[in-house]
């Protein structure tokens, strides 16, 4: 009894981060109709930024060897700063890899190539500056908090897991309130639904697309930082598997659906958590097999709309 409850807790906490990350894919997809393949690289940036803002020292292999920031930020501020810096990286990606194509009305397939290219450049830059080694975040970031909290009945949660769950949950709540209650959120949805009509209302779709990129990249950076807290940074390429998983969540939830991304993230997280420890090397395979199963039954994803055939 307690075992599966424990697994559920683990699954929900990592699932919250997957959801947060996949929401970034969703936001950009909903306004542009294309997938930003640099999103995983921005996630990686967020992890490294978090390390640096927490006062971490750069290892010996990169150009920035043995450098560190003169100041050390507390965890909450470091995470927000990492998100903001990642948002700037995302805006740069938009300016370099998306805007020139948008201006020319290019084929959606071309965005795939340019964003993939931008992602590769970012990852290589990280390797150049920070080296290829793994980084462990400072162990004292949680201050006087215990590493593990007991929830009673033998159930326990790592403080970091609780943090993932709380930050993920609160951020998603804020995002949903903003999207559905504020006028600018509604304007973003208007661009997503019908960009031409949005322009006729005087909504600057270019600015809305930039806003979507900034928010999406903030979420990627924040989730990168959270994952780094939980499992440390395995090297410049550690974002790739999360990037793929985020895509899986996007497809599972239904392309462009905000509630879909949130539920999809939780489902993938929980599925993974239930993979037995001795098969943990196959964790990703199980998550994706589950994704295939769902898609056989619902090809449009959980919250996606079935395509309407126009004759």
């Amino acid at each position, binding site marked *: 009894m307690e075992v599966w409850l424990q697994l559920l807790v683990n699954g929900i906490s990592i699932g919250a981060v997957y959801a947060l990350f996949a929401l970034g894919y969703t936001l950009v997809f909903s306004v542009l109709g294309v997938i930003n393949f640099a999103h995983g690289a921005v996630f990686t940036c967020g992890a490294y930024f978090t390390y640096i803002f927490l006062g971490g020292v750069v290892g010996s292999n990169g150009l920035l060897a043995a450098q560190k920031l003169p100041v050390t930020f507390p965890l909450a501020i470091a995470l927000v700063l990492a998100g903001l810096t990642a948002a700037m990286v995302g805006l740069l990606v938009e300016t370099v890899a998306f805007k020139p194509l948008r201006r020319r009305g290019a084929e959606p397939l071309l965005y795939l190539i340019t964003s993939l290219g931008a992602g590769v450049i970012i990852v290589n830059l990280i390797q150049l500056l920070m080296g290829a080694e793994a980084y462990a975040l400072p162990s004292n970031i949680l201050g006087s908090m215990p590493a593990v909290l007991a929830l009673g009945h033998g159930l326990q949660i790592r403080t970091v897991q609780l943090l993932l769950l709380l930050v993920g949950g609160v951020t998603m709540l804020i995002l949903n309130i903003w999207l559905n209650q504020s*006028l600018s959120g*509604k304007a973003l949805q*208007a661009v997503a639904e019908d960009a031409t009509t949005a*322009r*006729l*209302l005087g*909504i600057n779709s270019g600015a809305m697309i930039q806003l979507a990129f900034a928010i999406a990249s903030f979420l990627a950076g924040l989730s990168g930082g959270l994952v780094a807290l939980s499992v440390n940074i395995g090297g410049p390429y550690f974002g790739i598997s999360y990037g793929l998983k985020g895509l899986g969540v996007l497809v599972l939830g239904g392309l462009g659906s905000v509630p879909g991304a949130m539920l999809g993230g939780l489902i993938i997280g929980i599925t993974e958590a239930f993979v037995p420890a001795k098969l943990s090397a196959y964790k990703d395979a199980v998550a994706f097999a589950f994704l295939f199963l769902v898609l056989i039954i619902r090809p449009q994803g959980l919250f996606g709309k079935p395509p309407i055939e126009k004759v």
Partner: protein
Amino acid sequence: MTIPLLELKKLGVRYGPLWGVRHLNLKVGAGECVALLGANGAGKSSTLKAISKLLPTMEGKILWSGNCLARCNTERSVKLGISHCPEGRRVLAQQTVLANLQLGAWIRRNKTEIRADLEYCYELFPRLAERRLQLAGSLSGGEQQMLAIARSLMAKPKLLLLDEPSLGLAPILVEELMQCLAKLNKTGLSMLLVEQNIYAALAIAQRGYVLEAGELVLEGNASDLYQNENLRRSYLGDKL
């Protein structure tokens, strides 16, 4: 002579090698309702799209109160007072009626004025008030058309570009809609009305232009056009 609110001088719009509209001279005076008529593919919608900058102007000029709109984009033209109510209504189906109207006022900042205009729209179209928290996609065709017009009004335009507002509406609704447009025109709002329903349009317009295959073939007072035999022909085509 006073400067017209909108003036098209030898306007040309092109789709690849094909001209949608060419050599079009057209004026809309302040407070005037002008009908733009013609058969399918005559270039009426292209003209409206050129004015609201959804399509680039390849030839000629668009003058707004005498100023050339050469380097203007759609968002800017809305701020200048040109509101384009597009063909097929294009309400934001996944948002509420109220959200559609609020987004119509996106370019405006004065909250009190926006609220007053919202009340005005509800007064004009009471059905929208009843359904304000419903998703726009769940409205009937006629209600969606009312919403599209009301949303355009929320931008507080000087000129309303209407593209086939009667399309797909029951005759009784067309009548109601045209009366509503006439009422709006009486408040001083200028309109450029593209219609397939020529007689309904000429009943409320003061002047009209008739396009055929992208070129202007007829223009004049609405009452003269109403009686013109050639209009029937160019609207329905020569072959009939």
